[in-house]
C-alpha cells in the first residue's frame, strides 16, 4: 500500500537521510525506531508529503506522494503546538472536516464518534489546554480518526507524557487500530514501545540514515502490558534492537551522554 523507494534527504552538504527503502501492507502496524537525531521526523515528513525528498520517492497505492494525501492523517509529538488553543476540543477535531461536502450533522457525528473512540465524551466544549497532556494527545488522535484516513502517521506521539499515561495511550491506540482496521506508521525512539506495538519494526542506523534491518514481531495479539512483556520473545527482540542501535556511533554517544 505504501512504498518508500530509495528516499534520501540532504540539507545543503549535510546528508540527513542517505537511503531508505521499506513497504507497508494495508492494515499493518509498522514502527520506525532509531537513535535520536537519526532523521526520523524528517523521514515521516517526507512520507506525509510535507517535505520534498532530495532523492527517491514515496508511493501510496502506486501514486507518487507530492503533497499531503487525503488518505493520511498525522499525529504530532507536541500536542500543545498541533492543537489550536483558541478552539474547543470539538472545533479542533472538526477543523479538517470542512470543505468535504459533509453536512453539519455528518460532521458532528464524525467528531462525536472520534471523541467517543478515544474516551473523551463530555469534553467537547473544553479547550485543549484545560486537559491533561494525555487527554490532549487523545484529542489529537481523535482529530486524526475523524479525518478517516487509511494510514495514520504518528511522530513520537507519546514521548511527552508520563509512563502510566503512555501505556494507557498505547493500549488505546492498539484497540482503535484493531477496530477501525487502519494502517499505522509509528515513529518512536523507545525500543520497548516499538516491539510492544508493531507487526514489524524498521530499525534505522545513525546519520546518514539507512535502514539497518526490518524485524518481524511475532508476538500474539491482543497484546497486554504485563503478559506480552513477560514473554521471552519480547525480551529477545528488545535486546536485539537495543544492540543494533547501541552499536551505532550515535547510540554510543547517547549512551555516554546518559552515563
Amino acid at each position, binding site marked *: 500500500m505504501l512504498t518508500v523507494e530509495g528516499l534520501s534527504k540532504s540539507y545543503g552538504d549535510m546528508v540527513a537521510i542517505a537511503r531508505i527503502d521499506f513497504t507497508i501492507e494495508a492494515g499493518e502496524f509498522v514502527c520506525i525506531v532509531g537513535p535520536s537525531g537519526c532523521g526520523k521526523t524528517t523521514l515521516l515528513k517526507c512520507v506525509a*508529503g510535507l517535505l520534498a525528498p532530495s532523492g527517491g520517492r514515496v508511493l501510496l497505492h502506486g501514486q507518487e506522494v507530492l503533497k499531503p494525501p487525503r488518505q493520511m492523517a498525522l499525529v504530532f509529538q*507536541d500536542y500543545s503546538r*498541533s492543537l489550536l488553543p*483558541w478552539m474547543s476540543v470539538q472545533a479542533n477535531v472538526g477543523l479538517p472536516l470542512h470543505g468535504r461536502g459533509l453536512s453539519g450533522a455528518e460532521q458532528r457525528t464524525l467528531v462525536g464518534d472520534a471523541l467517543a473512540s478515544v474516551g473523551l465524551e463530555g469534553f467537547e466544549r473544553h479547550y485543549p489546554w484545560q486537559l491533561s497532556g494525555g487527554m490532549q494527545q487523545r484529542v489529537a488522535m481523535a482529530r486524526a480518526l475523524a479525518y478517516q484516513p487509511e494510514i495514520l502517521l504518528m511522530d513520537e506521539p507519546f514521548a511527552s507524557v508520563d509512563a502510566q499515561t503512555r501505556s494507557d495511550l498505547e493500549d488505546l491506540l492498539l484497540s482503535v487500530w484493531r477496530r477501525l482496521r487502519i494502517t499505522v506508521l509509528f515513529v518512536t525512539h523507545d525500543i520497548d514501545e516499538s516491539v510492544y506495538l508493531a507487526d514489524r519494526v524498521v530499525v534505522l542506523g545513525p546519520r546518514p540514515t539507512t535502514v539497518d534491518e526490518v524485524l518481524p514481531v511475532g508476538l500474539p495479539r491482543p497484546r497486554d502490558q504485563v503478559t506480552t512483556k513477560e514473554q521471552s520473545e519480547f525480551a529477545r527482540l528488545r535486546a536485539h534492537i537495543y544492540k543494533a542501535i547501541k552499536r551505532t556511533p550515535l547510540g554510543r554517544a547517547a549512551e555516554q551522554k546518559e552515563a
Partner: protein
Amino acid sequence: MARRRIVYLTLEIAVPLLAIAAWWWTSNNSTSPYFPPLSDIVQAFRDAWLFRHVPTDAAPSLARMGAGYGIAVVIGISLGMVLGLVPLISRALGPPLEFVRAVPPPVLIPVAILVFGIGNSMKVFVIVAGCIWPILLNTIDGVRGVEPTMLDMSRSYGVSRARHWSRVLLPAALPQVFSGLRAALSIALILMVISEMVASTNGIGFYVLDAQRTFAIPEMWSGIILLGGLGYTLNWLLMIAERRILRWHRGFRASQLAAIAEPR
C-alpha cells in the same frame, strides 16, 4: 488574596476621587484666568458637552477617528498577514517600512492638505497614515511567529485556504495584533486632535484651540477633559474586547507556565 483585591479596588476608586477633590479645593478661590476654578470648568463642560456641542464637534471628531482607525485596522491586518507570509517581501520591505514609520505622522498634514484639501478626507488620511504602522508591523511579526507545527498540521489535514487564514493564521497572530491595535488607538486620538487644530471648522481639537483663542478658558479646559475621558473610555473598550477575544490566550499561557513549573 480577597483582602488585597478589596484594597486595590478601594484605591482605584479613592485616588481619582481624592485628586478631583484636591483640584476642586485648591482651584476654588483661583483668580488666575488660565487656571479657573474647577466649578467653572464643570459648568462649561455641562454647557458645551451635555449636549450642545456633541453633534457639532464631538460627533465629527469621533467619525473621523472611527473611519481612520477602522481603515488602518482593516488594511494593516490584511496587508500584514500577506507580507508576513512571504518572508522575501517582508525582508525587502523591512527598511523602507521602518523609515516611513519613523516619519512623525503630523508632518504629513501639509502634504495631505495639498492633496485632499482641508476636509474630512485629509483628517482621515492623516489618522490612517499615522496609526497603520504599529498594526501592520505587529501583524507581520505575529504571522511570522506562528508555530511551524500548526502550519504543518493545517497543510497535512488539507485545511482550505480560507479556513487556514481565518481559523489558524489570524487567531495565532491576534495576541501580537492586539498590542498593535492598542498603540494605534492612542496615535489615532492624537492625530485626530492635531489635524483638527491645524485645519478645521469643527471637531473637539478645533473647539479647544478656538476656545483658547477667544479666551474662553473654562471651555478650553472642558474640551481637554472630554478628550481625556474619550481616550480613557476607548482604551477601556479595547481592553474589554481583547480580554474576551484573547481569553484562550491567558488560559493557554497559564497552562504552559504550569507545565514548566511542574514537569508532568
